[in-house]
């Protein structure tokens, strides 16, 4: 690896850090300057993420794994940053979403409180750091950076509802952080290392006396991740926090829940792949059941919600549950399908969050109440206006964007959500016909299909009430900075659909790479001599 390739890994972490520090010093009066700096930084991170993605997939890096040894310390002793196809993809998704959320926040939300821009950059830094680090304790530190910034952002705009939700959110995450620390220290006590790859190698040769420590440590650690990933029964905080946060922040929070799942995916596949037979697949059944319970919980929740924010929250819970329940099968096709669905649905839920905020400005509480009562008493809705009213362009745009999001979230054709769900279900059916854990797989298939159906019912109900049943007389004011991110996300959905073959190919390579932990061992533990020598030359 050349020097710039190594330092490219630091860009998504260090650039936001510096930018956030500068942004704190600037006064809130220079609003445009702050926004400009924030946007430039986020775009730089996006470019770096795109470059990372290109590097890991173009074959310039051996085995598609890039490394940076911080301060040139050799692997098990120093902190290692590692980029592979999965983390490059996640960083790209996070920074792309950040650009959209930031643009959306420009016209209103970034001005209703102080330090929005610096907190936003710290959040970006924490998320990217969590994706790129290969050290368990460092992961904790980046989680805390990300969470501390998100506490500030959830409270951004400071009203009674946000304070209440923020208070609960902070306490729950602090307690989850305690579990994280306990889990990490137990794993350290069992294996004597914090480097993830080295830990996997130590587990392969662990003495049976330490199995108890290891198992308890993993169990407690996964509680912390599942709390962040909002798995049932640890995810009750999610819908009300999403509902309380301002929309651009809520869009970023949707991404944050996926970090817990990312950690489960990475650690579970890495740590137990080479383990002795007693430990093989440890906790896999728990992950499966917990994932299925999460899907069921999200399905019921979605059906019961009337307001857009909880609908989006439960949608996020369902997509978490789907990824969680397929991790333990260790099947490449299945993982690729689930990741495809995760990307599409996460972006769609985030876009839905942004979209419904504009829609909500139209819906006065009175008209929503009227629509509800009319439905409850089965009053025939007699249109007082002539049939064939001209729909204003802005409202039509909102409607189309809403349909796009709904199709992506529920996985209905023609957008890429359907392709993702189809490949997921196909892989599941193949697994079921090969005869392992047959009934469980069929149960999972039923749950996934039912969750999609109830999702479309719930979203359709919301759409009908919002766009058809209310008499919106006021014209919609749609500012450009609010429309651009939504258009961009819609274009991404279309791109994902048109280029589905390429995306799926990339995700299959991702899943294949994740399932061969030996690659990580040879790269992280053996390559360092060469890297250190080349670092010394320059």
């Amino acid at each position, binding site marked *: 690896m050349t020097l710039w390739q190594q330092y490219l890994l630091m860009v998504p972490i260090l650039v936001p850090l510096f930018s956030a520090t500068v942004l704190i010093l600037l006064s809130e009066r220079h609003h445009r300057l702050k926004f400009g700096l924030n946007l430039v930084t986020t775009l730089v991170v996006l470019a770096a993420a795109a470059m990372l993605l290109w590097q890991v997939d173009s074959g310039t890096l051996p085995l598609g794994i890039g490394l940076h040894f911080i301060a040139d310390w050799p692997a098990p002793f120093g902190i290692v940053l590692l980029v592979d196809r999965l983390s490059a993809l996640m960083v790209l998704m996070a920074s792309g979403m950040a650009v959209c959320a930031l643009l959306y926040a420009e016209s209103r939300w970034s001005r209703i409180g102080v330090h929005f821009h610096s907190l936003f950059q710290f959040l970006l830094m924490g998320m990217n750091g969590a994706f790129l680090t290969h050290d368990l*304790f460092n992961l904790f*530190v980046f989680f*805390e950076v990300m*969470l*501390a910034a998100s*506490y500030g952002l959830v*409270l951004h705009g*400071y*009203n*009674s509802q946000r*304070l*209440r939700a*923020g*208070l*609960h959110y*902070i*306490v729950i995450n*602090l*307690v989850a*952080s*305690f579990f994280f*620390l*306990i889990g*990490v*220290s*137990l794993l*350290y*006590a069992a294996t004597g290392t*914090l480097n993830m790859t080295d830990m996997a190698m130590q587990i392969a040769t662990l003495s049976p006396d330490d199995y108890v420590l290891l198992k308890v440590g993993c169990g407690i650690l996964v509680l912390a991740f599942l709390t962040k990933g909002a798995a049932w029964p640890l995810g009750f905080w999610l819908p009300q926090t999403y509902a309380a946060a301002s929309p651009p922040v809520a869009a970023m929070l949707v991404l944050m829940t996926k970090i817990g799942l990312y950690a489960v995916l990475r650690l579970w596949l890495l740590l137990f792949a080479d383990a002795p037979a007693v430990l093989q697949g440890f906790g896999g059944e728990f992950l499966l059941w917990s994932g299925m319970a999460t899907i069921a919980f999200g399905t019921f929740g979605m059906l019961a919600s009337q307001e857009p924010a909880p609908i989006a929250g439960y949608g996020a819970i369902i997509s978490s549950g789907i990824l969680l329940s397929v991790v333990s099968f260790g099947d490449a096709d299945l993982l690729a399908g689930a990741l495809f669905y995760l990307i599409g649905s996460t972006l769609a839920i985030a876009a839905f969050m942004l979209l419904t905020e504009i829609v909500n400005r139209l819906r006065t509480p009175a008209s929503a109440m009227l629509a509800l009562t009319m439905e409850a008493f089965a009053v025939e809705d007699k249109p007082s206006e002539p049939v064939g009213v001209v729909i204003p362009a802005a409202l039509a745009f909102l409607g189309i964007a809403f349909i796009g999001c709904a199709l992506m979230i529920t996985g209905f054709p023609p957008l890429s959500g359907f392709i993702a769900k189809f490949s997921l279900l196909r892989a599941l059916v193949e697994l079921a016909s090969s005869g392992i854990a047959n009934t469980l797989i069929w149960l999972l298939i039923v749950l996934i299909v039912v969750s999609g159906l109830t999702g479309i019912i719930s979203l359709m109900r919301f759409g009908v009430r919002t766009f058809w049943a209310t008499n919106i007389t006021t014209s919609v004011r749609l500012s450009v900075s609010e429309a651009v991110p939504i258009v961009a996300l819609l274009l991404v959905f279309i791109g994902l659909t048109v280029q589905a073959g390429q995306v799926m190919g990339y995700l299959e390579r991702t899943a294949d790479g994740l399932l061969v932990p030996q690659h990580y061992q040879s790269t992280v533990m053996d390559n360092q001599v060469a890297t250190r020598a080349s670092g010394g030359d320059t």
Partner: protein
Amino acid sequence: MEVVIAIAIGVLFGSGVWLLLRPRTYQVTIGLLLASYAVNLFIFTMGRLWVDKPPLTLNGVPTDLSQYADPLPQALVLTAIVIGFATTALFLVVLLGSRGVNGTDHVDGKEPKR
């Protein structure tokens, strides 16, 4: 020694959990503090308990691993203390904000109906 430390951690964490489940924000804060003390002690003991062994190499002490305590958990504890302290301070600010806006120190922002 192990027993004493284990009981201390257990009592601290137990009290912390009980206080966390109380309805007043101030009790929750104290609960968070107690639980974080317990967690910090726990991390410290995960490097195994040693008596009279420094975590740093010293002149005069042979450079043999059995002569030294594990320095890593001590470094981790330092980080954990700093982070825990900062987030608890942040929680205190939110607590005060909630008290100011809602006029009550109940965790739900309103007094329960009696």
